[in-house]
């Protein structure tokens, strides 16, 4: 941990830097993907051409389809991937000549380019001889990611303030249940939305009370809360909701609401601006949480409590109330994600309908390194993989659907194991603060 000053004259900073960049994780991971690319795109290469459909018939601005021959594209992509890997290897071995900042930039750019190219190669290969509706693929991605993003934002807020939030799943499920019930009874989806937030807050209250007041291990409370909410919602579903489905479990859904001018932008318009109110709320939430966390007094205090509660306490921040209310806020945000299930995608509640989305959101939090924007992108990646499976399933893809569904989890494992750099959470996350 602490660097000891060695007798020889080497400055500490130099040794530290050179040890930092000698991490071979990224080049090894990229090399693995290059091998996968060689096997899939070259050895198992497929003939035919892949059409990327960039506009649907209803669009105002029509873009021409983009046709790529599968085999040549696959070979080109593989060569480019190999070149990028060489760049990263060179960066790892001879990177000392560049400044740390420049090195990081180049590395990040290479990895982004690599990901994009690999995806392009994969799509071209998987859909050879068929057409991929690009807007449909991305539209579905945004929709499927919405609950994950809300959940991940809830997770980010909660963990940044120092409470591990494994109960995202429970918050989503409680939100979904209450949104369905209240919206059905009142006939108003907006009331349902508020109910979902309250449900999320209630779950958070239990999490906060047990972890802050009773000092129970936060992971345990989270795990048990998930089971409790699952049990409660399933019980009430069987005894209350299913008795009178028409009156109690038929929620009015939010209609799709295209934003006038923005929705006519090609590709981006239909994907981002022909969504429902909940998705628009999601955009606002992402921006608000990001600005709030990093550019306001509230966020500074929140992060201080999560990183070093003693120090925060010393300067007069009340640690435990700060934690309590911010965990509650996190619950409200995650509850909104729950409302997505019953007020947007389907109009009725079903047992265990979140089906592990909360755990994926938790993975997105860690994958996104506790940063709301990165976590959003991680959630989008998971949504993309799920939707890709749907789209390829419709086309008839050569990859078994289970492997497509497995992908986000494998990626998370790789990410957590250090592919995207060492993931370090807020220092005091998971540790109760006892004022001495």
């Amino acid at each position, binding site marked *: *941990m*602490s*660097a000891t*000053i060695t007798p020889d004259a080497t400055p*500490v900073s130099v040794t*530290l830097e050179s040890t930092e960049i000698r991490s071979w994780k990224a080049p090894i991971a990229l090399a693995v993907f290059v091998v996968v690319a060689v096997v899939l795109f070259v050895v198992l290469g497929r003939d035919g051409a892949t059409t990327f459909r960039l506009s649907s018939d209803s669009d105002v601005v029509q873009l021409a389809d983009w046709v790529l021959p599968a085999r040549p594209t696959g070979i080109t992509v593989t060569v480019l991937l190999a070149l990028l890997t060489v760049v990263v290897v060179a960066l790892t071995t001879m990177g000392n000549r560049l400044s740390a900042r420049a090195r990081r930039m180049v590395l990040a750019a290479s990895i982004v380019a690599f990901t994009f190219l690999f995806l392009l190669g994969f799509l071209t290969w998987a859909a050879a001889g068929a057409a991929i509706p690009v807007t449909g693929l991305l539209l579905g991605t945004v929709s499927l990611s919405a609950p994950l993003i809300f959940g991940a934002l809830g997770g980010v807020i909660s963990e940044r303030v120092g409470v591990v939030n*494994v109960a995202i799943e429970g918050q989503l499920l409680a939100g979904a249940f209450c949104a369905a019930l209240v919206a059905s009874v009142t006939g108003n989806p907006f009331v349902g939305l508020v109910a979902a937030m309250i449900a999320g807050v209630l779950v958070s209250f*239990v999490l906060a009370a*047990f972890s802050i007041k*009773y*000092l*129970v*291990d936060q*992971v*345990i*409370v989270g*795990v*048990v*809360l998930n*089971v*409790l909410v*699952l*049990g*409660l919602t*399933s*019980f*009430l579903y*069987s*005894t*209350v909701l299913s008795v009178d489905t028409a009156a109690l479990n038929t929620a009015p859904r939010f209609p799709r609401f295209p934003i006038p001018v923005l929705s006519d932008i090609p590709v981006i318009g239909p994907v981002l601006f022909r969504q429902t109110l909940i998705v628009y709320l999601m955009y606002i939430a992402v921006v608000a949480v990001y600005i709030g966390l990093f550019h306001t007094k509230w966020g500074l205090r929140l992060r201080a409590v999560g990183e070093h509660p003693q120090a925060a306490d010393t300067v007069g921040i009340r640690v435990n109330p700060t934690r309590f209310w911010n965990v509650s806020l996190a619950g409200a945000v995650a509850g909104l994600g729950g409302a997505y299930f019953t007020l947007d995608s389907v109009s009725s509640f079903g047992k265990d309908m979140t089906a*592990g989305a909360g*755990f994926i959101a*938790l*993975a997105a939090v*860690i994958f996104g390194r506790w940063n709301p924007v990165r976590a959003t992108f991680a959630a989008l990646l998971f949504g993309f993989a799920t939707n890709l499976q749907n789209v390829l399933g419709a086309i008839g893809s050569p990859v*078994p659907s*289970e*492997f497509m*569904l*497995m992908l986000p*989890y*494998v990626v*998370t*494992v790789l990410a*957590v*194991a*250090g592919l995207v750099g*060492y*993931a370090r959470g807020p220092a005091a996350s998971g*540790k*109760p603060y*006892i004022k001495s």
Partner: protein
Amino acid sequence: MSGGTPAPATTTEQTADQPRANAILKEIVNGNVLITVLAVLLALLIGGVLIALTNEDVQTAAGYFFSRPQDTLLAVWNAVSGAYVALFQGSIYNFRRDDFLTAIRPLTDTLTYAAPLIVAGLGVGLAFRVGMFNIGGRGQMLIAAAAAGWVGFSFHLPWGIHLIVAVIAGIVGGALWAGIVGLLKARTGAHEVILTIMLNYVAFYLVAYMLRTPGLLQAPDQVNPKSPPMLETAIFPPLLGPAYKLHVGFIIVILATVFVWWLLNRSSLGFRFRAVGENPNAARVAGMDVKNIYVYAMLVSGGLLGLAGVMQVLGTVPTGFSSGIDAGIGFDAITVALLGRSKPWGIFAAGVLFGAFKAGGYAMQASQGVPVDVVTIVQSLIVLFIAAPPLVRAIFFLPDGSRRRRRTTPIVTKEVEAK
């Protein structure tokens, strides 16, 4: 963290932090029996409230509560007692049967349900003692079930040997799947909670894929994603004759409990497990290879959860398995381990209790129409209450033992002795 002066400060802070975090685990491990009993009572009470609130007779009677309150109370009593009597009859002793041998059958059902819960709980509890959360029970059970099931339906071996080979295959499968987590945690510092959750899904989809692919695990003449039934030689033989479901697996469960008790309390490896769980920094200073301990612990933990998967596939449902073979036991095991306070015999008792809930829950649903989910609620409430003894003490107006002791440390003797 560079330079000479801050170094001592950080080290003292870490050593001060570490026991704090472990004290919480210790609190879970060393609670007292009274709290456990009260927590179970409290949870049953809340379950009763839920049953009463959703009961139709109670709702009708409550409509005229102020004119005839006794009707409501009677309806509440009927609903709650009916449900809990059904729970008891379905899980322990059915006094409506004439002869003892059939009346006691629910108890053997309870033990059958308890068998996988206990071994899975042992696996999770062992990981707890090393300071790790193994939430990957589902994945480890699925992989183990697939391995044991594959040996069970496709190998043709003599009676006895076949069963042993299948059991070992399952244990190895579960151990390896958990070993990945241990290895990644030890080598890269990745958090085991995330790894195990993610590997649950990977295992689920992997097994689902194998189950729908002919030539791997799918039954030859089937369309459904389901394996062929186990061969007769690979199934756990019944323990009390064909009339009862209880199988030889339960003997293995008892042996496993003894083994884990021996491993944790009498072996050198177990000592190192506990040392790392109590304080990894101290263990490292004492010369233990903490990283390898994590790997070994996950291997053993995964092996035990694998055994639970084996119990399911060769004992509970030997007629071929689907991807739901784990039946949520991987998650129930967490609550079992917490309730048993991570001690082998505690887990054994907790497993039997949860097995009773499981057996009785279905009986309750069938006879009283109370959804089996109420059992899930009661179970999770039990664990919540047990994890927070001060809350239970406050509800039952019990003296707060821990705080008084802490306050009196300077004066010590009198009050501590008076307790």
